[in-house]
C-alpha cells in the first residue's frame, strides 16, 4: 500500500505547479489552466484523506471532491466566457495589458 504522505507530496507538487502557472503566465487561458491544476491537487488530497481515514463507509471525502469538480466546471465556463468578453473589448488576453482598474 502506498503511504498517504506520497499522495500528499504529489498533490503539493501539483498545487505548486498550478500556483506558479497562475502567477507567472501572461495568457489568461493559461492562468485558468493553472487554477484547474490547483483544484485537482486539492481533490487528490481529499480523496487520499478519505481513503486512509478509518471511516471509509462515510463518503464525505468523495462527495466533497465531486462538488469541487462541479465548482471547477462552473468556474471554467464563467472564466472562459469572461475571457471571450474581454477579448471582444480589448483585443487581447494578456493579463498584463488588462490594467483598467490599476491606478
Amino acid at each position, binding site marked *: 500500500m502506498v503511504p498517504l504522505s506520497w499522495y500528499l*507530496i504529489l498533490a503539493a507538487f501539483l498545487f505548486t505547479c498550478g500556483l506558479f502557472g497562475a502567477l507567472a*503566465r501572461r495568457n489568461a487561458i493559461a492562468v485558468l489552466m493553472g487554477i484547474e491544476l490547483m483544484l485537482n491537487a486539492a481533490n487528490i488530497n481529499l*480523496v487520499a484523506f478519505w481513503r*486512509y481515514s478509518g471511516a471509509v*463507509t462515510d463518503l464525505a471525502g468523495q462527495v466533497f471532491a465531486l462538488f469541487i469538480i*462541479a465548482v471547477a466546471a462552473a468556474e471554467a465556463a464563467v472564466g472562459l466566457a469572461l475571457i471571450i468578453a474581454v477579448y471582444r473589448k480589448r483585443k487581447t488576453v494578456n493579463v498584463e495589458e488588462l490594467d483598467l482598474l490599476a491606478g
Partner: protein
Amino acid sequence: MTWSMLFFVLVGAVSLAAAAGVVLSRQPVHSALFLLTNFATLAVLYVTLEAQFLAAAQVIIYAGGIVILILFVIMLIGGETNDFVARQRSWTRGVALGLGILLLASLSYSVFQGFNQPPADVTAIQGGIPEAVGQALFTQYLLPFELASILLLVALLGALVLGRHGTVAHTGSQPASPPPSSDD
C-alpha cells in the same frame, strides 16, 4: 517497494511532468494537451484510491468537458498570445517562482512532520463504486447536491450573458444584438 508503490511512482512522474508542461510550454494549445494528460493520470490515481466513480467523473467532466472548452477558446482567440514575447513586468516570474518554492517547502515539511508514522493497513473496500456514491449523494448529501445544481444553473446563465455580443442585461426589450455565430 511493492508493485503498487512502483505504479504510483510511474503515474506520479507522468502527472508531474504533465503539470510542468502545462505551466512551461510556450504554446497555449500544448498547455491544454498537457493538462489533458495530467487529468488522465489523476483519474488513474483515483482508481488506485478505490474511488472508481470519481475517476470516471474526472475523465468525463475534465477531459471531456473542460479541456475541450479550453481548446475551443484557444482556437478562437488565445492562440496568438505567445507567453515568451508578450509584454511582462520583469519581476513577475521571479516572484512566482519564489512563492511556489516557499509553498512547496512548507507543505512538504508539514507532511513529513505529521505523517511519518507507518501507514495504517487499509483493507480493500467497495466505497467508491457508483452505487455507494449515488446513495450518499441522494440521501445524506441531498441539500449540497441541490445547491450544486443551482450553482451550475447560475454559472450557465452567467456564461451565456457574458458570451453574448454587444451590450446586454439592461436592454432586454431591444432585440438588436445578433445571435453569436460561432462562439457559443
